[in-house]
C-alpha cells in the first residue's frame, strides 16, 4: 500500500493549501514519517511523485532538517538537548546517564526497537534544562531518577 492509498484525504488537504505542489514537500514528509516511522527511501520517492520534484531534491530536504529521520527509529524517540545552556546545567553527564540506562549510544536504537536516543540543538527550553523531547513532547528539568522512571513507565505501557 502506498502513502497515496493510505492517506489520500490528508494528502489532498495538504496539497490544496499551497499554490504549487512543491511547496507541500515538508508537510507531506511529516505525513510520510508519521505513516512509516521515518522517511524511508520509498517514502521519499512517493513524496517526490506527489510534489513533481526529483527524488534527489526531496532527499536533500530530508537531509537538511534534523527532525526528518532517514533511518528506522524506535517506538519512542528521546531527543536530549546538549546545546550550550543545557550543557552548563550538566547535559553532557545527563546524556551519559541516558546512554547507560538504555544501553545504547546517542544516535542509536535499543535492540528491542523501543527507544532511539539522540542529542539535539537548543529546543528553546533552556530555562528548564536539562530538557528532552519524547516523540516531540517536552520533558523538563530532567534528573537521572526521573529519566529512569520515565523509561520504565514507557516500557510498561507497551
Amino acid at each position: 500500500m502506498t502513502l497515496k492509498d493510505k492517506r489520500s484525504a490528508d494528502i489532498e488537504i495538504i496539497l490544496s493549501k499551497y499554490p504549487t505542489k512543491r511547496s507541500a514537500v515538508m508537510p507531506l514528509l511529516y505525513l510520510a514519517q508519521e505513516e512509516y516511522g521515518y522517511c524511508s527511501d520509498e517514502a521519499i520517492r512517493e513524496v517526490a511523485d506527489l510534489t513533481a520534484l526529483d527524488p534527489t531534491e526531496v532527499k536533500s530536504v530530508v537531509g537538511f532538517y534534523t527532525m526528518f529521520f532517514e533511518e528506522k527509529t524506535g517506538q519512542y524517540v528521546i531527543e536530549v538537548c546538549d546545546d550550550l545552556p543545557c550543557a552548563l546545567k550538566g547535559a553532557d553527564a545527563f546524556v551519559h546517564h541516558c546512554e547507560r540506562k538504555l544501553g545504547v549510544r546517542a544516535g542509536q536504537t535499543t535492540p528491542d526497537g523501543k527507544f532511539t536516543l539522540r542529542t539535539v540543538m537548543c529546543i528553546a527550553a533552556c530555562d528548564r534544562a536539562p530538557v528532552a523531547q519524547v516523540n516531540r513532547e517536552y520533558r523538563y528539568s530532567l534528573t537521572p531518577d526521573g529519566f529512569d522512571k520515565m523509561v520504565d513507565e514507557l516500557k510498561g505501557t507497551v
Partner: protein
Amino acid sequence: MADLINLTIDGIPVAVPRGMVIVDAAKKIDNDIPVFCYHPKLKPVGMCRMCLVDVGTPKIDPATKQVVRTEDGKPVIAWMPKLQTACTTPVSEGMAVRTNTKQVLDARNNVLEFLLTSHPLDCPICDKGGECPLQNLTLAHGPGLSRFEYEAKQHNAKHVPLGDLIFLDRERCIQCSRCIRFQDDVADDHVLQFHDRGRHMEIVTFSDPPFDSYFGGNTTDICPVGALTTADFRFKARPWELDSTPSVCTHCPVGCNISLNTRLETRTGGHEIKRVMPRQNEQVNEIWTCDKGRFVHHFTRAEDRLTHPLVRDARGKLVESTWEAALQLVADKARGARVSGVIGDRIANEDAHLFGSLFSDVLKDGAVAMSPAIPAAYADIARAYGVGKDTDFKQLGKGDTILVVNGDLEESAPVWFLRLRQAVVDRGAKLVIAHDRSSKMHRYASRIVTYELGMAAHWASEQTTELSAELKSARNVLIVFGDEKLSAEGARSLARSLANILIESGHAGKANSGLLPLYPHANTQGVFDMLPATTVTTGKVDVAWLVGVGNAADVPQADFTVVQELFLTDIANNADVVLPALSFAERDGSFTSGDRRVQRFYRALPGLGQGKPDWWIIQEVAKRLGATWQYHGTSEVFAQMAQHNPYYAGLSYETLSQAEPQWPPVGRADLYYGGTAYDNSGGIGSRYAAPAEQSGFNSSLEPVVAPPVDMEALQHLPHTLYQDGELIRRSKVLSGHVRAQRKEAETA
C-alpha cells in the same frame, strides 16, 4: 542600451553595464578577484566567501541628499563596515572597491585555511591537479601552514559513483554548489543536491537512474576541485601531459567547439585521445558540450579500425592490398562507367567538394547524392531561409518567439536545447511547440500543438496563414524543425511551409530569425552545399562509390562497389574494394553546422595504419582518371572551393582560424573557472549569409500541398541522442546507454 555604471577598483576607473557584479567588473581590468562558488555562467550564491572585498559608496548628506565632497571636489566614500562578497554585489554609480588591503588579503588567506581543514590535499593523484582552482588559489592566496589539528580532519568516501559516467570524491568537495546549479539552472536535470549540513554537508544523487543527464560531463569541468571526475578520464593522465588540439564535434548540427586532449602512450606505442573538452565559443556552445560529444571518441583508436586497403580476390575474399593496386583498380572500373556516388553527412567539406567535382568534372556518366537522403530534400530551403548571418542566440528573449516543429531539441541538438531553453526560461522568449509526442522542451512551452504521427507537413501547411498573422508582431521568429516520420517529400513540404511563415510574417532573411534544421550530423549542410545538383540514377549502375555512409539503408545496386570507411561495416564487408579512411581527429578539415557556421578542425592524432583522408583518396583516383588536381592539403581544396561556391565566397582557412577573445574569460589565462582546454586558439569560424538576406533574392511565397502520409517513414525510429551507430557503439563508457536507448526505441 549603453547603460554604463562608473566605479573604481583599486583606484582604477571602470565603466560596466548595469547589473554586473564586482567580480566581473574587475575582470574587465584584469583584476582577478579569487572565487570558488561563483561562475560567470551560473547564478551567484555567495557561498564560499573567497571573493570578499572592501566596498564603499559615495557618502550622501542626509539633509541635502547630495554627495558629500572633499575640498578638491572628490566624493567622500562611505566604506561598508564589513567586507562584501564581490560575486553577489552588483556595481553602482560611484562605487569604490578595494581588493588589495590587508583585511582583504587576510580574508582570502583565512577562507583558504578553513577550506583546507578537511581537504585531503591528495593533489599528486588528483585528476584536477595542474588545472585546479583550489590548487592555484592556495598557492596565490593561501597559508603555508594550517592551525587546525591534523587528527580532526574528516575522511570521506573517495570513489562514489553518481551514475555510470561521473564519480564523486567526497573529501575533495568544497561545497560550492556549482555542479548543483549547473544541473538545476542550465541542464534542468535536478539530479544533484546537498544532503545534511555544516561539516557533514555532501553531494548526493537520489534520482532513478542516478545522475541521468545528457550534460553531466560539464559538471566535472566547472567543479573547482577534483571532486567530480568522468568515468572516461579519471586516473588516465595528468593535465600537463596533454596536448590540446582544436576540433569540432561531429555528432549533431550544433558543431560544438571541442579540444582533443591527446597523449603519447608508451604502452600502445601511439597517440590517444585522453579526453574531449569543450572549447569556448560563445556563438556556438559557450563552454558546454553534451556527453555524446565528450564520450564517443574511443572509435578513433578502436581495435577494429581499417588499416589497409582491401580488395576482393579471385575466390571472393577481401584481402589486404596496396594503395597503388586498389586505387588503380577503382580508376579502371570507373573509367567510362556509370557511377553512382553516395557520401555521408559526417564527411568534411573538402572531401565532399572533391567528390562533387569528381562527378561534375571528371566522370563522364555519374550522379552523386548525400546520405541520409531525406535532409538533402530540404537543405536548400533550410539554407535559403536559415538564421541571419548575425544571429546570436544570447540576444533571443522577451518579444521573440521560438517555434519548435516536429523534432526533439534535446535529443537532436543538445547544446541548442540548453541555449534556447535559457532564451525562454531566463530571458522570456515565447516557446510554441508542435510535435506528435512530448519532449523535455515541452516543459517550457506556452503553447503546445499535438498532431497525429506523420502529420507535421499537413499541420504546417494548414496553419501557415494563422501562424504568420500571430507571428507578425514578434520581434524575432526562430523556427527549429526536424524531419521525424516524414518522407523526403513530406520534409520538403514542411520546410517550405515554415519558410512561408517567415516570409508572410516578415521575418525572412533577418538576424535572430530564420529556420534552424535539426540535421542528423555535423556536416549535413556542408556536404549538401558541396555537391553539384545531379539527377539520381535509378536502377543498377556499373560502380557504386560510397564515402563514409556507415550503414545507410539505401545504397545503389552495382556490379562493383567501392567503400571508403573507418570500419568494416556490413556495407564494406560486401564491397569489392574497401579503402581505409582517417577519422576527423587524424586530419584537417572543415564542417558547416546546421546554422551555417563554417568551422575548422585540426589534426590531433597521427593516422592509423595506412589510412588516408577521404579527400586524398578521391584525388588519387581522379588523377588516374586524367584529372590534373594537385592539392597538397585541405586548405588548398577549401581555397579552390571558396572560389567557385558562392556561399563560401570570401572564406578561407585564415578567416576561419581567427579567434576573438571570448567573454566571460574562462580559458587558460584564468584558472579560477577551471580547465586548461577552454581557450579557443583554433578559431571561432564564420557563418555565411543566408540567401534570403541578400539583395536580389526573391523571397516569395510558394503554395504547398502536403503529400500523403508515408507509411514507410512512419516506421523510422524517432531520433535519440544515444541511438545505435558505428561510432557510439565503440565508446568505452556510453555503450550501456546505447543498448538502453535501443531497447526503449524498439518497445516504443
